[in-house]
């Protein structure tokens, strides 16, 4: 089935699908059917989904079709299929967190799912993840680890923790996959799988009904194939929620209207420390992306963040005890049911002292001030998302230039700073390394200024074709 733009429905963006549905060029039933068929064909190997709501999605698509034909007002995502990480509550189904032992059906939708539905989105199912969102590799020992579609022969890390979200979007199983991000868990799978990933400002999108990992660092946001789609999903999901203590009352911009604006004159700060720390296969495409933004009329200059080197210790001092505090009651009853790496990482959090936790929170304020100070001189920061490309699943060490590191440490090297500070970040594909694996940049904005980074990201995507390439394991 092809849409009016000529490409198969499963490769159309959420924006294209919403417009086609509203214009009666295609029925929501056709859109949902095309995606369910794609899931049926490919997901046996890819393992992006933990649950598929085929009957419910088709029933919802029929209602959506009736609304179009009746001329009712349509939401931003009317008739658009979406899927959510299995950390988001969906009424009547268990929120497993990727585990085997959380099986109680949720009494209500999470706030994000409710807002997606209110915007007309149709829920296809729930997506795989690193168990309890606690790992950047994207491993799930219970349900099988999602297959990174950019390598048909070797099982490479899909990136985590929102592994299923990255794979589903990259493979054309869904145009939108919702994820969560505590140390990079939206941006890491986006980078490994060659998609866009938006971590909004801390407090921008409600976390009510999403299983927590670290209250101080958790964010939720979308993975999509285009920045315009991320803007559309953010417009549908952002806003104050009095039930979320971290939720901000800050005004919500019209992201859909601003995403197409020209970027001439916008000032971009290339974060030299992070570029220098990346492997050469990453450095080249990242610097080329900065040059492309310059060609589009932006002004690129180098910036430094001397305190950024403390992001790891600060993140660990906060994340460890908060994750352990949430999971301790579950660990007492189900320790043996956790996958071993997650159980051990959680247990390690028990050994961060109260003083270290407070020092982490103090340092967080200073890091935030430093990033804000840099953003007085520029409109956004540009960094690599990862220092490497997606490693094979079984490796225990990766090479970054001449250095060796663990996959976990390497994958979060450039992402966790912005969980600590809460700044909005969008990860965007910016090329491919020699093995055909995606490379990605992060654009970091001022607090609550997602509009500017999405504007830059979309302008970059309009000028390049990285996001239009299709992975070999999901042609």
């Amino acid at each position, binding site marked *: 089935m092809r849409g009016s733009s000529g490409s198969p429905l499963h490769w159309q963006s959420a924006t294209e699908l919403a417009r086609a549905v509203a214009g009666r060029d295609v029925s929501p039933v056709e859109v949902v059917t095309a995606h369910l068929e794609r899931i049926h064909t490919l997901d046996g190997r890819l393992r992006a989904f933990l649950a598929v709501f085929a009957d419910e999605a088709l029933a919802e698509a029929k209602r959506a079709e009736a609304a179009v034909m009746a001329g009712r007002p349509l939401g931003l995502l009317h008739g658009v299929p979406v899927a959510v990480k299995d950390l988001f509550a969906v009424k009547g189904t268990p929120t497993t967190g990727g585990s085997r032992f959380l099986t109680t059906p949720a009494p209500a939708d999470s706030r994000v799912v409710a807002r997606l539905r209110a915007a007309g989105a149709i829920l296809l199912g729930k997506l795989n993840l690193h168990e309890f969102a606690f790992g950047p590799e994207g491993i799930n020992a219970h349900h099988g680890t999602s297959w990174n579609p950019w390598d048909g022969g070797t099982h490479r890390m899909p990136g985590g923790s929102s592994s299923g979200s990255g794979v589903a979007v990259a493979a054309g199983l869904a145009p939108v996959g919702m994820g969560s991000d505590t140390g990079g868990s939206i941006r890491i799978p986006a980078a490994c799988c060659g998609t866009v990933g938006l971590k909004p*400002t*801390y*407090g921008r999108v409600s976390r009510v009904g999403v299983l927590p990992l670290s209250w*101080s660092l958790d964010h939720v946001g979308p993975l999509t194939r285009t920045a315009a789609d991320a803007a559309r999903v953010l417009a549908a999901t952002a*806003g*104050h929620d009095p039930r979320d203590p*971290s939720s901000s009352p*800050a*005004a*919500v*911009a*019209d992201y859909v209207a*601003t995403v197409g604006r020209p970027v001439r004159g916008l000032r971009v700060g290339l974060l030299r420390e992070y570029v220098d720390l990346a492997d050469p296969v990453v450095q080249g495409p990242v610097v080329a992306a900065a040059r492309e933004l310059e060609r589009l009329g932006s002004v690129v200059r180098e910036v430094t963040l001397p*305190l950024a080197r*403390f992001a*790891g*210790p*600060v993140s*660990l*001092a906060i994340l*460890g005890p908060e994750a352990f505090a949430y999971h*301790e009651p579950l*660990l*007492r009853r189900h*320790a*043996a049911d956790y996958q*071993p790496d997650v*159980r*051990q*990482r959680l*247990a*390690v959090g*028990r*050994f*961060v002292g109260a003083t*270290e936790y*407070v*020092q*982490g*929170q*103090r*340092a*967080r*304020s*200073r890091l*935030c*001030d430093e990033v*804000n*100070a840099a*953003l*007085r001189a520029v409109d956004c920061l540009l960094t690599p998302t990862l220092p490497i490309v997606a490693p094979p699943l079984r490796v225990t060490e990766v090479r970054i230039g001449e250095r060796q590191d663990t996959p976990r440490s390497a994958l979060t090297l450039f992402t966790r700073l912005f969980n600590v*500070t*809460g*700044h909005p970040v969008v990860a965007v594909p910016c090329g491919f390394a020699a093995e055909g694996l995606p490379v990605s940049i992060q654009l970091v904005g*001022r*607090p*609550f*200024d997602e*509009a*500017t980074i999405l504007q830059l990201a979309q302008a970059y995507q309009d000028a390049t074709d990285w996001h239009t390439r299709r992975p070999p394991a999901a042609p």
Partner: protein
Amino acid sequence: MDRAELERLARECLARIPMPPADWAELVPQIERMCAIVAELEGFPFDDAEPAPTFAPDRGAPEGAAPPALSR
């Protein structure tokens, strides 16, 4: 602290959690690594920084950082 002492302490702290016996050999080195990383905070220039009781990322942000927009 040597490894045996650290493992004794770890077992005491996690006494209420039925950790599988096979975990201990991996857990103790992980605790050591975590302690070493967190100890890097000793070199952090805290100055007069306070932990913000209600953290907001726009604290100290440029004036007008949030664009004029529609309220929800």
